[in-house]
């Protein structure tokens, strides 16, 4: 690769940075993503743009930005939000442009960019407003209805004239209507949906309770002494709707907060990129026009738009993957990934992968899939709740029947209490809330949870098997030497030639060693070209050369068909073999991951049995195992051998976890109870492992296990609470000792307790971490 001088020449004949970006912000086609058009009061067509802000460090900054924007001619309205780091500006296209708005914000000392994620946020905001409106109606009406019903409670019998009593009840009835029809509508809708799908949901008892209470109270108001008795319960009705809605509103806000932070973490790609033309002229183009092979200049503080190697040294913030903002030093030739931040100074990057092929896009889609994988878990929760809810309904009916014989005036009241106080929500939320909180805690540390149920398996693990190459060792080893074999010399090849051939074959392979071979970037093209390339996982790559003979690159025994054996060297090796025998032997320097010894000690200290399973030579595998303190090691293992080992362990009754690079060990990882994928490169995001270690740190395995165990402990606590609560409150309600308003309060409070308890999963221990304390806390 050509090297650039460290001081980059200033771009010539280019638009300045601001103007170039203006071209993009004012581009009508791109503007549609963040601007909507509407009519102002005087009929003018005005634009409402959503901008993303940066550099706000307190709530007052939002005010500064608003004032700066409002002073701009052409701006009709400006609203900045510190919490959301967004601004909405209503502007007149005849007087100003979006680029001027951005420039104004920059002059004020902050930064702004068009906000492409506006539509999702707008939806969330509309949902929140609607929920708050419903909650307000319920709470406000609850207060007034209680005021109207208070005289009925406190008046001495005979002092309240029947006319006045009726008037008070009519007023209470009028104010209960909005609560039942509007505020409680989501519960009716959810209960109806559940019934249509022939399953019983948590909203069904609540909906039935509300309906019965309202009907009975209406009857008592307009036809006292008639069928429905003379006791109205409007106050209880509005109170428990208000409490339930309060719980739902808090849950909604929490969910939206998670979604917003996810969006914030993921909206890191720049919208405009500085592409270098062949004469090093800089042109500003939109991100969507970048293609592999382009070179882009990324300034300090900007994020990289694509995956690709850097042409000079740089410092990069890869918190996207690792959760750490500590700068990572990159050498010339090291790859930077899309979405990471450039910290130190301007650097040029050669684009290799863009758009959906970047690791960033892979992580986004994995996250989205993982987030939307909630419904199966909730459906499982509903399955648990279903028999419980049937029991509750039957119990309520039985209580109503029994009480109508004992004391008919209280029958309805007791039935409603029983329906409302039983909180299936606590039971149903017990597991999902804790597992979701654990998954959130893990993704913040750089571990992606693809299967939530795996958290349970992780907590119960007693054995972990590790692959060696690419897992315990660094993913991209260095090629130490290329040793020419006799057959290679006879074929007239030299070292450069065999390196070139190996590099060509290696580009088709996904094995970690191939990445090192393919990265050699030989100066001359390979003397042979290949067709019909096929990879044999665990063995190597085979291809037909231009001379119509078979070439193989891979494990010694397989590639040379028994012609060579693995030599005991310090690291792994790969053989290139042609039709006449072995052509070359490549040896790699094998470097253990930095945190491997510490992680093995931690896991062993926690009582786990560790094993090393590798396809590499047995004595090298044993050597690595000895260095790391792993008791059991198995070398020369084919994928089938690894499968057998895991199956044997499972037959022994053990719960086995497998750590590998996700692609080469796919069937083995599927067989294990829990699987971890670790490694570099886009292949990682295509793996189907239960946990994906985005950060490349082995220590995250121990961390994940600690969090999973905390989560399971919290699940058990939640379940215990839910059972205890129901066992206590249902008998009380059956006995008529639980008024409906208290039932509503209890139901909301118990759900809230379960959710809040789940948030404890991420609480870090206050004492400094060291193995003994870890083992004690685990």
């Amino acid at each position, binding site marked *: 690769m050509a090297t650039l001088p460290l001081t980059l020449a200033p771009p010539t004949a280019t638009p300045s940075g601001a103007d170039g970006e203006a071209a993009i912000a004012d581009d009508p086609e791109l503007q549609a993503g963040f601007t909507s058009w509407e009519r*102002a*009061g*005087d009929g003018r067509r005005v634009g409402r743009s959503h901008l993303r802000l940066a550099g706000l460090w307190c*709530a*007052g900054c*939002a*005010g500064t930005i608003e*004032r700066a924007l409002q002073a701009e*001619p052409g701006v*009709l309205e400006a*609203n*900045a*939000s*510190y*919490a*959301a780091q967004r601004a909405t500006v209503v502007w007149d296209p005849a007087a100003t442009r979006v680029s001027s708005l951005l420039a104004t914000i920059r002059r004020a000392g902050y930064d702004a960019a068009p906000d492409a994620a506006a539509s999702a946020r707008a939806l969330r*905001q509309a949902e929140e*407003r609607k929920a*708050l*409106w419903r909650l*307000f*109606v319920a709470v*406000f*009406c609850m207060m*007034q209805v209680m005021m*109207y019903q208070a005289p009925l409670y406190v008046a001495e019998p005979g002092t309240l004239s029947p*006319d*006045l009593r009726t*008037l*008070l009840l009519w*007023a209470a009835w*009028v*104010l209960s209507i*909005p609560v039942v029809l509007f505020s409680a509508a989501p519960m009716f809708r959810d209960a109806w949906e559940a019934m249509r799908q022939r399953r019983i949901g948590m909203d069904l008892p609540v909906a039935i309770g509300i309906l019965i209470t309202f009907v009975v109270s209406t009857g008592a108001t307009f036809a006292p002494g008639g069928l429905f008795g003379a006791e109205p319960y409007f106050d209880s009705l509005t109170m428990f709707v208000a409490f339930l809605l309060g719980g739902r509103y808090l849950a909604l806000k929490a969910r939206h907060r998670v979604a917003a932070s996810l969006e914030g973490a993921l909206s890191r790609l720049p919208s405009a990129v500085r592409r270098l033309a062949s004469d090093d002229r800089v042109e500003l183009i939109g991100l969507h026009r970048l293609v592999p092979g382009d070179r882009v200049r990324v300034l300090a503080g900007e994020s990289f738009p694509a995956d690709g190697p850097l042409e000079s040294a740089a410092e990069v913030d890869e918190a996207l993957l690792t959760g750490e903002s500590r700068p990572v030093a990159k050498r010339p030739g090291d790859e930077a990934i899309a979405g990471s931040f450039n910290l130190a100074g301007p650097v040029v990057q050669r684009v290799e992968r863009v758009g959906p092929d970047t690791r960033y896009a892979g992580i986004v889609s994995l996250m989205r899939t993982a987030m939307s994988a909630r419904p199966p878990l909730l459906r499982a929760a509903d399955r648990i709740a279903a028999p419980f809810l049937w029991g509750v309904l039957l119990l309520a009916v039985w209580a109503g029947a029994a009480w109508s014989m004992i004391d008919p005036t209280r029958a309805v009241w007791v039935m409603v209490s029983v329906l409302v106080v039983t909180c299936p929500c606590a039971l149903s939320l017990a597991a999902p809330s804790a597992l979701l909180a654990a998954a959130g805690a893990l993704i913040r540390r750089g571990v992606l949870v693809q299967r939530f149920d795996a958290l349970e398996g992780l907590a119960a693990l007693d054995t972990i098997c590790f692959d060696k190459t690419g897992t315990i060792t660094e993913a991209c080893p260095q090629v130490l030497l290329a040793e020419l074999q006799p057959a290679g010399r006879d074929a007239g090849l030299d070292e450069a030639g065999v390196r070139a051939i190996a590099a060509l074959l290696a580009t088709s392979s996904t094995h970690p060693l191939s990445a090192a071979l393919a990265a050699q970037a030989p100066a001359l093209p390979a003397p042979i070209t290949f067709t019909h390339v096929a990879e044999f996982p665990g063995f190597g790559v085979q291809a037909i050369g231009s001379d119509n003979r078979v070439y193989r690159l891979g494990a010694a025994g397989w590639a040379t068909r028994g012609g060579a054996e693995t030599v005991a060297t310090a690291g792994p090796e790969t053989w290139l073999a042609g039709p006449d025998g072995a052509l070359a032997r490549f040896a790699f320097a094998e470097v253990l991951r930095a945190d491997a010894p510490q992680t093995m000690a931690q896991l062993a200290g926690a009582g786990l049995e560790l094993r090393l399973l590798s396809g590499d030579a047995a004595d090298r595998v044993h050597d690595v195992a000895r260095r790391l303190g792993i008791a059991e090691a198995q070398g020369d293992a084919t994928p089938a051998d690894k499968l057998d080992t895991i199956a044997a362990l499972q037959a022994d009754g053990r719960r086995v976890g497998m750590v590998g690079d996700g692609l080469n060990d796919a069937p083995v990882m599927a067989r294990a109870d829990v699987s971890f994928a670790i490694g570099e490169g886009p292949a990682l995001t295509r793996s189907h492992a239960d946990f994906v270690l985005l950060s490349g740190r082995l220590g995250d395995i121990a961390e994940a296990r600690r969090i999973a165990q905390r989560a399971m402990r919290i699940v058990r606590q939640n379940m215990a609470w839910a059972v205890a609560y129901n066992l206590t409150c249902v008998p009380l309600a059956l006995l008529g000792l639980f008024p409906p308003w208290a039932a509503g309060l209890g139901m909301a409070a118990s759900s809230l307790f379960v959710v809040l308890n789940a948030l404890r999963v991420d609480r870090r221990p206050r004492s400094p971490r060291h193995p003994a304390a870890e083992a004690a806390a685990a």
Partner: protein
Amino acid sequence: MDILFLLIPFSVLLVFALMAAFLWALQTSQFDDLDREGTRILGDDDPDLDVDQASPGALARHSSSP
């Protein structure tokens, strides 16, 4: 206590009026960022007092803002 026959229906109407006021406040984004609203009082956005209306910008600003 006959006055209650007037007051109670009136209070129901008042409740509706108050709900409408809340709805207006909600829809004009006043509840979107409560921290910001709380610190608005700390902002020093009082424009300088232009006693003799001499500054030319004042008239233009007042006529262009809705």
